């Protein structure tokens, strides 16, 4: 990890520690929690799409598995929340492997549609066979540490962003080392990867599982925070929303996922004025980002900063 990343992480950590205390506005804290949760899924998707070049339109499926599995395990089986989250992540990983083995032989559009199909099938399964069916269910245990349930949203915000920061560190470390280079090489030329002895299939499956685990953790956090979930939160619309976050922020860097997630999560607030236009505005944002901000906000901004610095040093 470069110095720039470390500094940015430290600043972010400082902000995370102080912000919840600085405001009494519980709505702000709620937004902070949701943007953190979305960011966790988004950075996983960034790694999958930006580094490895694999598409997924089905992340909401793993998000949903994480939410439902963790809820059921902690509510019906009495497992501690942390253990439920880990088990849910394992289940999501398993689902990812089952999907990945056949799907990752596909390329481009076919892979995109296969992941879309998978996400939708999970949605339908949750709708038909999940506890409570389409209406969902509640009374999901809150996040707790050492037996103490977290009722103060500020604490939940710290946990969510704490996990997010840890995952950022993990991801940045991984991306700057051998596995990250392998993923980017995958995106560059599979032929050359094979010629250099990389096991392409294994890499693709691993990165797919990684993104599924991130999504699952986020889903579990979501479920234990809102304490009531229903299948409508885990539909294609959400997979597309996630896609929007990473496209807007920039898929080539995990910072892009984070920034994109924060922006898109805060968006409904600014859109309050445009009641019936929200779908349209989402679509326009996505379209305009693709047309004009192709690389995403974070790479464009950091690119500008770099060239400014270079001009000063020259």
């Amino acid at each position: 990890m470069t110095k720039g990343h470390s500094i940015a992480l430290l600043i972010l950590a400082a902000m995370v520690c102080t912000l919840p205390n600085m405001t009494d506005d519980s709505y702000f804290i709620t937004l902070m929690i949701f943007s953190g949760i979305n960011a966790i899924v988004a950075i996983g998707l960034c790694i999958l799409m930006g580094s490895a070049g694999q598409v997924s339109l089905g992340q909401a499926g793993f998000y949903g598995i994480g939410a439902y599995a963790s809820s059921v395990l902690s509510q019906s089986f009495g497992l501690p929340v942390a253990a439920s989250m880990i088990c849910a992540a394992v289940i999501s990983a398993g689902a990812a492997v089952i999907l990945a083995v056949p799907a990752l032989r596909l390329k481009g559009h076919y892979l995109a549609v296969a992941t879309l199909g998978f996400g939708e099938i999970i949605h339908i399964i949750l709708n038909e066979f999940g506890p409570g069916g389409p209406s969902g269910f509640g009374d999901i245990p809150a996040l707790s540490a050492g037996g103490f349930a977290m009722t103060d949203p500020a604490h939940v915000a710290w946990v969510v962003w704490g996990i997010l920061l840890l995952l950022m560190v993990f991801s940045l470390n991984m991306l700057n080392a051998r596995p990250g280079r392998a993923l980017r090489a995958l995106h560059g030329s599979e032929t050359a990867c094979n010629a250099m002895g990389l096991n392409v299939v294994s890499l693709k499956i691993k990165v797919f599982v990684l993104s599924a685990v991130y999504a699952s953790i986020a889903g579990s956090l979501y479920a234990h925070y809102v304490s009531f979930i229903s299948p409508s939160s885990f539909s294609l619309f959400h997979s597309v929303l996630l896609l929007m976050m990473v496209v807007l922020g920039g898929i080539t860097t995990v910072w892009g996922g984070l920034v994109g997630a924060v922006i898109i999560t805060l968006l409904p607030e600014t859109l309050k004025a445009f009641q019936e236009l929200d779908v349209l505005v989402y679509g326009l944002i996505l379209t305009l980002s693709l047309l004009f901000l192709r690389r995403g906000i974070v790479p464009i901004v950091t690119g500008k900063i770099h060239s400014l610095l270079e001009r000063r040093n020259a």
Partner: protein
Amino acid sequence: MLDVRNITKVFGGVRALDDVSFSVADKSLSALIGPNGAGKTTMMNIISGMLFPDQGSISFKGAVITGLSSASIARMGLSRTFQHIELFGEMTVLENILVGRYIKSRSGFLAAGLRLPFVRSEEKENCAKSLEILASIGLEGKKDELASNLPLGEQRMLEIGRALATEPSLLLLDEPAAGLNIRETRDLGKMIVRLNTEREITILLVEHDMDLVMRISTAITVLNFGQKIASGKPADIQRNRDVITAYLGEEDTAC
């Protein structure tokens, strides 16, 4: 080092390779030549595992490699470069070489994410080895350049450097001089000879540039229309009538 036996490959109705056999001696600098369409690239792709032959077998260091994936073959010590550059364009020069170090390292996703101590020392070691390779191919000044920004000659060198990073016993070079000018070709030739003599890497070179081939190789196999028509030392090949006919046509129609 490499034993090619009775390789046949048919595409639709075309016999790209017809019962071709030849050997590459340990530590030699061998070449595979022939006019366009002779089947040289097909042979390269079969040896490196990208294509499977319809008949015949190939052994490498005594072990049969026909039917193995190209990744497995690479891990056994056989590396290659490509006629149409297959660099990782969006990665830097140094990173391209580092990917070559993949099979010589072990940091996995979990270990790297947690930045365990052995990961740190492995990264340092790989960086050092990669910089050394870059120095030997003359690209250390451009280590942070994007690979796609390099001129063709340097991209060719980078591909060779990346293949070197895998510490191969046998290096397949697929038309490395294509598109290079005379000076670049000469430098390339010197580099290939150095790899062969100083690093003791066996080389199998597929090339069109006869000057280069005759100058640096010690053993040549000639293909024409998928069949082997001659093999031997450069001097013998230059005098071989079948070879001359293959390249220039029948004597009566030659201008």
